[in-house]
């Protein structure tokens, strides 16, 4: 892990291939991180690299989104060819990847034809196809913990979000996870997420950091240090988290269907 930087310097955040990996609000993670820095008076440089573009290896934080099978394979080929993400991660840059993004950072994953593809090897995990339905719905991991690059185990409270994936991911011996899933599938073996050093993957898809400000701030802490993490008004997200926890725990997959809805079959 690189040492915490002085707060006056600009934090550089790179969104990787939003045109390929941005199916479902994934850009929200860049928005959340950038705003949480700006609200604390820290300058942000947001870089967005479309497929085919040259990936910088000097950013502080990289975001890899979710996507459909074809674009996922294409993104992997480009990232392997470029080598920049691996160089950056090896130098301690933070990488946060959701859903298909987590799958391609692992050792291997199945492509649209079910053929195994080599991943970037930044996460110690393999993704496999299973003979089970897609995992779609609320995903809740209570008492979640993240192991920081320094090896500290840091509590994150409850992780909440939505998952939508066909593959399942098996974490390897060197990886840690966020903990045990309470509701939903997560990795598929009862755990959720894969963490190796400063590289973090999750099956919470899309704007995962919007509902989980503790995780967003932990990633930022790895870059700007404890002292810069001044408090932020999270009233709105607190109301959302409370509402979503209750909904997930009442197994709301089909929200509030009235008897009229049922008769209409809508």
């Amino acid at each position: 892990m690189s040492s915490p930087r002085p707060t006056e310097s600009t934090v550089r955040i790179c969104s990787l291939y939003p045109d390929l990996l941005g199916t479902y609000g994934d850009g929200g993670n860049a928005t959340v991180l950038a705003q949480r820095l700006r609200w604390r008076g820290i300058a942000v440089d947001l870089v967005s690299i479309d497929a085919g573009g040259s990936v910088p290896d000097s950013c502080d934080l990289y975001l890899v989104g979710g996507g459909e099978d074809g674009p996922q394979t294409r993104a992997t080929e480009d990232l392997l060819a470029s080598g920049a993400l691996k160089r950056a991660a090896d130098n301690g840059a933070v990488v946060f990847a959701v859903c298909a993004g987590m799958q391609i950072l692992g050792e291997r994953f199945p492509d649209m034809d079910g053929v195994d593809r080599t991943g970037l090897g930044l996460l110690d995990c393999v993704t496999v196809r299973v003979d089970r339905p897609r995992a779609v719905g609320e995903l809740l991991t209570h008492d979640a913990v993240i192991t920081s690059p320094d090896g500290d185990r840091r509590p994150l409270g409850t992780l909440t979000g939505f998952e939508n994936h066909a593959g399942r991911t098996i974490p390897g011996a060197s990886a840690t996870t966020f903990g045990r899933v309470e509701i939903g599938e997560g990795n598929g073996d009862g755990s959720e997420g894969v963490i190796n050093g400063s590289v973090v993957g999750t099956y919470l898809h899309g704007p995962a950091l919007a509902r989980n400000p503790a995780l967003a701030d932990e990633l930022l802490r790895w870059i700007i240090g404890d002292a810069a993490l001044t408090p932020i008004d999270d009233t709105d997200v607190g109301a959302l988290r409370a509402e979503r926890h209750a909904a997930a725990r009442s197994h709301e997959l089909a929200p509030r269907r009235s008897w009229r809805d049922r008769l209409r079959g809508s």
Partner: protein
Amino acid sequence: MTSARPSPAPSTPSPGAPPPLRARLAVTVGRSVATVSRALHLGSGSVIGGRAALVVDPRLLRDLTAGRDVVIVSATNGKTTTTRLIAAALAGDRPVVSNATGANMTAGIVAALGGAASDATAVLEVDERWVAGVLQATSAGTVVLLNLSRDQLDRTQEVRKLAEAWRTCLSATPPATVIANADDPLVVWAAQAAPSVIWVATGQDWRADAAGCPQCAGRISFTGAAWRCTDCDLARPEPSVSVEDAAIAIADDRVAIAMRLPGRVNIVNAAFALATATSLGVPTPIAVTGLESVEEVAGRYRVTSLAGRPVRLLLAKNPAGWHEAIELLADPPAPVVVAINARIADGHDPSWLWDVDFERLRSRFVVATGERRHDLAVRLRYADVEHATADTIDEALRVAMGRPEHTAGRPVDIAANYTAFQEYFERVGGSR
């Protein structure tokens, strides 16, 4: 879906002939069920009535469209409005039947057709997942394809698969004419499978769903109005219809048009409608008169009264739809109400809110309501948009109208996604 059932060999009735006895019986049953449904205040009854009719005659859609001119309209966004505009453009020239309420799967379509004169042209809005089934059952001569973008992905999975299904059915049951968006790579790839296509330049600048080439998994490169795949031959076709400020250029004609529906998006929808009407032989002046007469579409755009307050309802249900809808809102700093649900018909996951450029609402106050108002409030918070949440639409309107930026007597715009819109529309006297 009817096509899943084994069916006898299709008969070939003469044009204008009445439908077979079984079909007529099915229609009667369907109407009776719909009447009961309405009497119990369950809505218009069209869907449940249509389902009952399909139990009596699973081939009903085929029977009710045999011998008719059929136009199918599908898209992610704009299909209800464009269906309405096509019906209006044709109506001065011939009898028309249409599923005007937006009930756009087989049950809703047969319910709409049940009462139609046998020589009426059927203008059918079709859910984008049902195009293959309806095209196969009706052998429609005209198919209008507006756009495809992400919508309810937790349910429909991938937009490319929708485009592939369109492509497959257009080559299996080729319509005489396809009218399609030249600026949407997914639509172009699908429509190219048809033998004859009228391409419409829409100037669509929502490109977030089209970056990956649907044909080869290469990448689409956009340069000004043009686009092409970097790896294969998929490229923007030469359009023969295009849109100007208050005019539609079609073939060598420039047709001035004064739409009552707001926004550029509705001139684009009118261009599809005009191209459809002229391809069916309707004289241009008659079609234009029809297009200019439309002032609301299934509750959208209409100023009405909700909870005793003047409001205008707008439907915006996904990022591409919002991209257009923000243009249609009353000028800032007028406060607006935004309502978000996440029921089955909306998709259970409102993550798409993060794909909407809500930063464009910074110059106004937004009241967030609907069942997922807290998701919206968090999005607005990160967009630095001043906002409040309200548990009910009545409270939301009270808050919006109490704002100093609100002009007394002016309607408040309510932009709602699908089921929220339907709920408010029912309250102002519309039906599903």
